[in-house]
């Protein structure tokens, strides 16, 4: 099962390595990972999306909480949290296709943040369904580059 795990940590070097090590040491691949300071600059929030056996993940969560620099661990169950991701996509675009891309961008309430003769860069935020829907719509134009933040989550 897929889990979204939110970890509040002290903002210090090495913390991320300790946390990712608990996953890699068990052969778990992390789907996405986001790290950034919170409103308190001494603290950071790490959001990990990972697939794995529930009992093993339960162990990992308990072991995460044992780490000296970890303050709080929340393993969000389905529907417990609001989840969002921000994606930047550079899409192939010329005079012929640009207007169609703009239409799709509007429908998904995304934004074009850069226009070049042969491409546009689109910024889109949303949950997984929305992002996947958008990407499947623009795929045929040609996605040249993609960067995403990984999922963020907050308890409802």
């Amino acid at each position, binding site marked *: 099962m897929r889990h979204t795990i939110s970890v509040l940590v002290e903002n210090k070097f*090495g913390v991320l390595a300790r946390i990712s090590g608990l996953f890699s*040491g068990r052969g778990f691949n992390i789907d996405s990972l986001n790290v950034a300071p919170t409103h308190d600059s001494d603290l950071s929030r790490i959001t990990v999306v990972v697939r794995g056996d529930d009992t093993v993940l339960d*162990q990992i969560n308990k*072991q995460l909480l044992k780490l*000296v620099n970890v303050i*709080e661990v929340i393993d969000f169950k389905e529907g417990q949290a609001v989840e969002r991701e921000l994606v930047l996509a550079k899409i192939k675009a010329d005079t012929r296709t640009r207007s169609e891309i703009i239409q799709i961008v509007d429908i998904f309430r995304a934004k074009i943040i850069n226009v070049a003769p042969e491409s546009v860069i689109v910024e889109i935020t949303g949950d997984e369904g929305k992002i996947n829907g958008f990407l499947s719509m623009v795929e045929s134009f040609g996605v040249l580059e993609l960067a995403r933040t990984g999922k963020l989550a907050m308890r409802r």
Partner: protein
Amino acid sequence: MKSSSTVASFPKPEVGPEMKGADIVVEALVREGVDTIFAYPGGASMELHQALTRTTKIRTILPRHEQGGVFAAEAYARATGRPGVCMATSGPGATNLVTGIADAYMDSIPLIAITGQVFQKFIGKAAFQETDFYGMTLPVVKHSYLVLNVADLPRIIKEAFVVATSGRPGPVVIDIPKDVQQAKAQPVWPAAVELRASKQPRHATDEQLKTVLGLIAKAKQPVLYVGGGIISSGAHPELLEFAERTNIPVATTLMGVGCFPETHRLSLKWFGMHGTVYGNWAVHHSDLLITLGARFDDRITGEVTKFAPHATIVHLDIDASEHNKNKVVQYPIVSDVKFALGRLNELAAANKFQAPDCRAWHDKISEWKRDYPLAWEPNKHITAQEAVRTLYELTQGDAIIVTGVGQHQMWAAQFYNYDKPRTYISSLGLGAMGFGYPAAIGAKVACPHKQVVDIDGDGSFLMNVQELATAKIEKIAAKALVLNNQHLGMVVQWEDRFYGSVRGHTILGDPNNIGSPDNLGGIYPDYVKIAEGFGVKARRVVKREELREAMQEMLDHDGPYLLDVIVPYTEHVLPMIPGGKTVADMIIK
């Protein structure tokens, strides 16, 4: 007004005179009550060694290999409960500590490992003797620090000791670049460091403990399965009272050996792969298994789905991440075990708790004990088992026994009875060969008035044989009883049982002239001569009739001593539950 009263409620830190970072480290260690450090110098740690020469409060012992130093520090901790401290230089010095750090991690031993690091300006540049020791040790430490600022040293060292010793103990690494050791600062000594709430030890609730007492009252075949947590929390008096009050038999793990007197009527000694028949059977047939400070290791459970199949299991441990890790149990309880046992005793007394009537169960166990005692086949030669039993008789059980890893480690646990905690010192989770003699040195330094004997195998002993020099020069009277069978006995046993006796590099001497009690000319190497080279008194004993007298000579000698006991390699450690099998598959004879 509010702010001033808040400030006043915190103890004020103390500011010391300006000194070098290296001197701050030493002063911080003194403030933590450290009296001994096992330290091997090098370029990146010599500032620290220079600082150590300026104190009279810490004894610095020079091991002859960093691995010997860390094992000695670990054994110091195992023998006393106080954190052991070791130190090494950067690069190879530090990497040589890794096995000992991993060992401390596996067995939950409080250990402080201090390493020198190259100058900060060289970090990440593949400088001479540079390794990323902080990164390298991440999976085997409870916590670690890379000190980037000399001003952080007092707090970091204080915090390191709190982390190493609190909750479930473990190793902490402090990596200190040379420029930090050389930098000068006025140390600000914190009065205290606080752990975050999530790191504070938790305590079982009365409801949880009353549930446990309720389960006991209804049990017909209860067993206490107790591990190293009893020893690290110092809960052995509470355990004894609880077992007697509830009249429940006690089976320990190897980590728990000595936490309950093995000569007590309720003792099942220890169970698991090579544990007692009666201990294993009692656990297997139990209807209530109360697990205290233990972790359902694979060497305890065998095939875990078939472990204690009829039992309701209570698992009380300070580490929540141990619950349902290896074995899913009905009653997981997170608690400091000393608190829980103390409170259980109080609740039992207050409620006039009556131990359940388990006479049939005790009768059954007595039969098993009578019919299946730990035993060995008589042999015309000295056997390892006989040597251990003889040592038990001569020391009357009053010695600290340290071991290497292998057959001798099991026999040392089987044929010596341990009535006190911290008297069987062994590398159990990691199973690190070479642990024995350096660990005996550490234990002897920690407990100079106790007889300390390393019961070792010839393979294990050779792995850190250089520590004979440490014992000689530092005048540490650690004894080595080498049970010399010229083979890697435990692997040989597995070869005999599961691999058609094909010897896959398990012969330690010349394969074309294998030494044995019947072929003394083939014995290799000559440990008596090796010991002589180190200036350590030694003797070889081959004949059964000389064993007792030779061992007494070893015990009576007031310095280090090596007794080379030649034993046949054909003995197997029994009973044995093969890996991944169950009690039903136990090989008894």
